[in-house]
């Protein structure tokens, strides 16, 4: 019992010892229940039994939450799976024609004998930017006859086998990972494709000996053939030839690929990832050039500018010349 304290002896309050007595008297009738001890023991046993299921349930709930959080926060990117099935070649006019022909009833699509629904590849078909100028009848028809069947899922290139990598390996035109070697016969370029056979295309002019490179400019899995067609002064002009969905070589018109210094003007180009940059510069003073760089992309309609040209100043006395041919051209 604690003693009385002065601050507790208030004139208007109750004396602590009196309060203590009243409290004890008030609760004196209370006796413990005879069942109390059994209830406590029962509660102890019940709590012991519930501990394991409660911990198990809690663990499972926590695991479920972690799993849900993982799925919600880190969704699997679906583009990784879809991306290979969408090579830019699928956008070509030829593709559209081929798909349309395939959807027609049998007999309307121009059967070639080996595949009833495959459309006939008609050279010189109307296309604004992409022109198939020529295809040697003999070798081309051989290549067509031995071409593997089209993969149904590859709707973007109905007649070409799917490429093995994106972009294609340098030197690989038909997308099988094997280097295809071009050769020149007159103004006709002949390429022995490793899986499609020999194909050829005739250009108005080709510089001999052949100056060429195979680079996948548009990163669609099929390499493009860059060929020097002619020169004007010290500037070399290049054309681009690509493999059409029908398995033939097509010259892409309107090539912006020029390289070299000609008087006070210079041109050059270099390949980048899926695009290429063409630079053109004019001499201002001494060896200082005002250079404009334009990014191009090879699309279904041909060469298309990407973004706005950028301008800069290059001093050839101290910086490497941008007026050179890139993309693997020596």
């Amino acid at each position: 019992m604690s003693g009385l304290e002065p601050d507790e002896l208030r004139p208007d309050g109750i004396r602590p010892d009196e309060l203590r007595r009243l409290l004890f008297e008030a609760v004196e009738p209370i006796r413990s229940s005879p069942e109390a001890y059994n209830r406590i023991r029962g509660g102890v046993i019940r709590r012991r039994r519930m501990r394991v299921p409660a911990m198990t349930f809690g663990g499972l709930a926590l695991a479920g939450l972690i799993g849900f959080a993982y799925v919600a926060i880190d969704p699997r990117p679906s583009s990784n799976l879809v991306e290979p099935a969408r090579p830019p070649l699928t956008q070509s006019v030829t593709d559209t024609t081929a798909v349309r022909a395939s959807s027609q009833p049998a007999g309307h699509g121009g059967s070639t004998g080996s595949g009833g629904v495959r459309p006939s590849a008609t050279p010189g078909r109307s296309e604004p930017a992409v022109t198939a100028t020529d295809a040697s009848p003999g070798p081309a028809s051989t290549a067509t006859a031995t071409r593997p069947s089209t993969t149904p899922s590859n709707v973007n290139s109905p007649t070409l086998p799917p490429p093995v990598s994106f972009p294609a390996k340098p030197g690989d035109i038909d997308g099988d990972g094997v280097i295809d070697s071009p050769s020149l016969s007159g103004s006709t370029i002949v390429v022995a494709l490793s899986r499609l056979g020999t194909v050829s295309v005739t250009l108005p002019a080709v510089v001999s000996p052949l100056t060429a490179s195979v680079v996948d400019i548009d990163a669609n899995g099929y390499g493009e053939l860059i060929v020097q067609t002619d020169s004007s002064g010290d500037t070399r002009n290049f054309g681009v030839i690509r493999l059409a969905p029908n398995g033939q070589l097509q010259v892409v018109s309107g090539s912006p690929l020029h390289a070299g210094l000609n008087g006070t003007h210079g041109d050059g180009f270099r390949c980048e990832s899926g695009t290429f940059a063409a630079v053109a510069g004019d001499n201002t003073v001494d060896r200082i050039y005002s250079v404009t760089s334009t990014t191009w992309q090879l699309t279904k309609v041909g060469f298309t500018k990407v973004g706005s040209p950028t301008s800069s100043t290059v001093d050839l006395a101290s910086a490497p010349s941008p007026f050179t041919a890139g993309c693997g051209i020596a």
Partner: protein
Amino acid sequence: MPARSEAARSEVARDADAALTALYSEHYRSLVRLAALLLDDLGLCEEVVQDAYIRVHAAWGRLQDRDKALAYLRQTVVNLARSTLRRRLVALKHAPKPMPDAASAEEGAYTLVERAAVVQALRELPRRQREAVVLRYYADLSEADAAAVMRCSVGSVKAYTSRGLAALGTKLEGLR
């Protein structure tokens, strides 16, 4: 290693069972009376005290100073009484009752308690003042111990006690 920990757990369980029995026989009735003074509903006081015993038993292995088991038990009673008052729910209402309800032997006694003027006056006090008064003058705790149970400062206990005594005096005078 697992065998040793299992043996240790068994020993703790045996200790807890023995301590539970000892604490029950010595302090159960006084704790029920303490709860009866703290709660508005006297029917809940035994349930609160029983639950406090169950909790102390479950926490027996974590008690650092087992000589203070009574203090821990008393504090658990006060905390549970607070929760009951605050929420007006039966403590651990989710736990099923272990035995069929038997008629409480204390129902008549509770009626007597309800009639006591000091209990009626006590119920009209604010909760903190009531706790301070009961812990100081029924549980006979020092101001420091009462402060520890109430989780407040000694000064607060003094203030609550002083105001509680003053209010009780006025109320009891009015009841007479």
